[in-house]
């Protein structure tokens, strides 16, 4: 502590104008980073579009029967194979004669579940790793950062391919989420560590320790909450990326089992008849793209809203 003392200059009382305190009007509207960000977001039309898409896909995932009463797996008639749209089947049929629209609706559940699980796993590993490495420094930082480097240096898609190849008997939603999130956390840990390194030298952190709060409690109460901005942005975008990763793995045949309804599986199956029936490939691809886009736009808008400099520039 003692070596820090000289770095900080405290203005003598006579230099601090006491009127400054009186000029704060208590009636002014409250303002902090999150409130400002929220006010900013509410003024941007794209925000409503992105939220509407996320809610819509979320509703499809939770209550698919609200959107379609055609069973997606049964009632598939090979007579309808690759058939065009007809009454009650607005998007036509797959190669197996299943209703494309019903499969797109039911596939939302798998994609969103994988996205959410990956984000939970990434956060559960990445936040403690990054926060502890950045806050405690010294050998703890060296050890945790080297471990992070190793995970960071294996492209997470390739790592997931290996995990899914080894666990070929257990291709379910949980395993694929662990395979993706188990490696994706390293980027989050790096981002959070860099942020914590900046925040931990701020005056309020020192004040918290000066009044006797323990190191760990300071980390939890003061440092972490003030370092979360980039984490939230990263996780929002990571949710979209995880959905893409699942679809790509399923497309390669090392994702979810072919009996699971997912957009990736449907695209993989439609791929074989791309020349004759491209629309069966188009619709699940469109659903996938729009969902990922909604999360990316949400992440970008939140990034802008949480950055006062970017707000001022606009």
């Amino acid at each position, binding site marked *: 502590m003692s070596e820090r003392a000289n770095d900080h200059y405290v203005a003598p009382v006579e230099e601090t104008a006491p009127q400054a305190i009186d000029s704060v009007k208590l009636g002014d509207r409250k303002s902090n980073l999150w409130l400002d960000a929220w006010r900013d977001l509410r003024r941007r039309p794209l925000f409503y579009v992105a939220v509407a898409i996320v809610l819509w896909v979320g509703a499809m995932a939770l209550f698919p029967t609200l959107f379609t009463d055609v069973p997606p797996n049964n009632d598939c008639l090979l007579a309808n194979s690759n058939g065009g749209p007809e009454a009650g089947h607005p998007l036509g049929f797959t190669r197996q004669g299943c209703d494309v629209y019903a499969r797109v609706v039911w596939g939302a559940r798998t994609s969103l579940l994988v996205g959410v699980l990956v984000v939970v796993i990434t956060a559960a590993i990445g936040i403690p790793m990054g926060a502890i490495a950045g806050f405690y420094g010294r050998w703890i930082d060296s050890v945790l950062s*080297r*471990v992070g*480097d*190793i*995970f960071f*240096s*294996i*492209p997470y*898609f*390739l*790592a997931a*391919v*290996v*995990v899914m*190849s*080894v*666990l*070929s*008997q257990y291709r379910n939603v949980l395993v694929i989420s662990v395979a993706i999130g188990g490696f994706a956390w390293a980027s989050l840990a790096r981002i959070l560590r860099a942020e914590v390194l900046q925040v931990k030298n701020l005056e309020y952190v020192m004040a918290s320790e000066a009044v006797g709060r323990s190191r760990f409690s300071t980390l939890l109460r003061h440092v972490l909450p003030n370092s979360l901005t980039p984490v939230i942005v990263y996780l929002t975008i990571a949710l*979209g990326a995880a959905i*893409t990763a699942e*679809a*790509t793995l399923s*497309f*390669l*045949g*090392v994702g979810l089992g072919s009996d699971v309804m997912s957009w990736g599986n449907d*695209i993989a199956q439609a*791929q074989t008849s*791309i*020349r004759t029936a*491209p629309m069966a*490939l188009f619709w699940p*691809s469109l659903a*996938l*793209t729009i969902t*990922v*886009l909604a999360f*990316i*736009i949400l992440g*970008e808008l939140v990034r802008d809203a949480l950055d006062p400099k970017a707000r001022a*520039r*606009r």
Partner: protein
Amino acid sequence: MLMYVVRRLLQAIPVFFGTTFLIYFMVFAMPGDPILALFGEKTPNPAVLEALREQYHLDQPFIVQYFLYMKDVFTGNFGTTFSGQDVGDVLARTFPVTLKLVIMAVVLEFLLAVIIGLISGLRQGKFFDNSSLVIALVLNSVPVFVALFLAQYFIGIKLGWAPPTVGANTTWAAMFLPALVIALTIYVTGMRLMRGSVIEARDADYVRTAQAKGLTSRRVVPVHIARNSLIPVITNTAASFGALIAGTTVTEGIFNIPGVGRTLYQAIILGEGPTVVTFVTILTVIYVIVNILVDLLYAVLDPRIRYV
């Protein structure tokens, strides 16, 4: 500079052993017979099983297995692929093709990022700026394999402007379409970096000085603004180089480009687990090496980094 190079190379050693060990650990420390697990539902022929057990030294304790495997890797003995070809030979044949594809994609990405980023930065908040961002984000959210299918179907099959698959004809022209698709799906990051640094440079003192002494924007924009904004874009592009070499699996698979990625793609599709592990390891090692080179490039471009 020399100190920096030495330090960076020393840092790479634990990463190198860590990554290879981690992959090896994921495969061979699993309970049960790892070789059988890698085959999934297929039943391999006993001779193949025996050869693989031999290659991976499965009669030894786990840690000994790993070091024997590393010894093989360092002596250039990567083993054989599923169909019996020497992995070293396959790499010598396929790596140049992958490199060609990735170089083309990276150059296109760089050009898109610089040109669109520069115009966006100069017209900040205007129609071009907003619409180019939305377009780039849309392109960025299309999963690569979907983008490739769309390009293959519309440009390759429907319009016939480019060959829908590449095959043995690996000329620059034949691989232009897949390279362009890759570039279009990733240029958003570079574009935003360029835009950001152009906006900063526009208000910088040296730009005001240049304008004050009467230089026209024909000279100020390329020489004073653009050139000084390039460093973050260059470093970002260099970083995507490594990621792309490791990530061409899907691209090469769909466009049938005979590179390293397609070898992995086919091994994945056919469920040839041991070959998958070999090529993932090789691609990871290449990724680690490229990232070291990229870091050294940063240090050349930006001397401040050497002293961090």
